[in-house]
């Protein structure tokens, strides 16, 4: 079965979702990421969804699960690059992605992770919704 690649960048893992995932592929990503976080002791996970044309309740739930699981493994997850049309639709759908931190792009997400790993207080939650 195809897999979504997980790249390691120092303390961080980077996942770029580039295909319209069917549900099982999304579930597999969730499992693979959990495994990878514990294998590599990664402190942060960036999930780039800028290629995703929609996020429905299933993908939304997957993002929430990844964020929750990474937290338990002492890593932080930031979802980056959500398209504006996707954000508008998600809110109307009723999914506010509680517990999922977001940033506009990979650079901003990286910055957010570095700041919070350096123990800065007052982490920016501005881009959450």
């Amino acid at each position, binding site marked *: 079965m195809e897999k979504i690649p997980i790249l390691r960048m120092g303390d961080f893992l980077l996942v770029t979702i580039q295909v319209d995932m069917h549900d099982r592929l999304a579930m597999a990503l969730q499992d693979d990421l959990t495994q990878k976080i514990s294998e590599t002791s990664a402190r942060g996970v960036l999930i780039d969804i800028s290629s995703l044309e*929609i996020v429905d309740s*299933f993908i939304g739930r997957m993002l929430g699960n990844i964020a929750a699981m990474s937290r338990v493994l002492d890593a932080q997850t930031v979802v980056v690059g959500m398209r504006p049309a*996707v954000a508008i639709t998600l809110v*109307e759908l009723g999914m506010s992605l509680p517990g999922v931190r977001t940033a506009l792009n990979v650079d901003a997400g990286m910055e957010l992770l570095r700041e919070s790993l350096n123990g800065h207080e007052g982490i920016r939650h501005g881009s959450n919704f």
Partner: protein
Amino acid sequence: MAVISSETIPVTSEPDIVFVRRRVRETAAQIGLSLVDQTKVVTAASELARNTLIYGGGGAMQLESLNGPRLGVRLTFSDNGPGIPDIQLALRDGFTTGSGLGLGLGGTKRLVNEFAIESKVGQGTKIIITRWK
């Protein structure tokens, strides 16, 4: 009101849900829906297709583009599954009999202009949604 085009797509596997999303996107773009409206109707289609597969035990989606007086896209999901005993309850955000968040039906209703459900216990479910340009 005239039906410009109509096709029926099976919803019997997960890859079918991906195909449903793609065809709805193409059709919505063709009739000139805005990007946000395309995204809304594709998301709605994804929710209903998954319900058809998981709860309805599989079924089909009819995809139509409409003209008159406005352009629009109409989707009809049908299955011969167990049906929905209490539609009002099923529409409520947070209600699920599965492992979902219970957002699919209520959310879909908010994402489209017209929404209708017919369901008979033991016979099946039919959900029709329309998004106008």
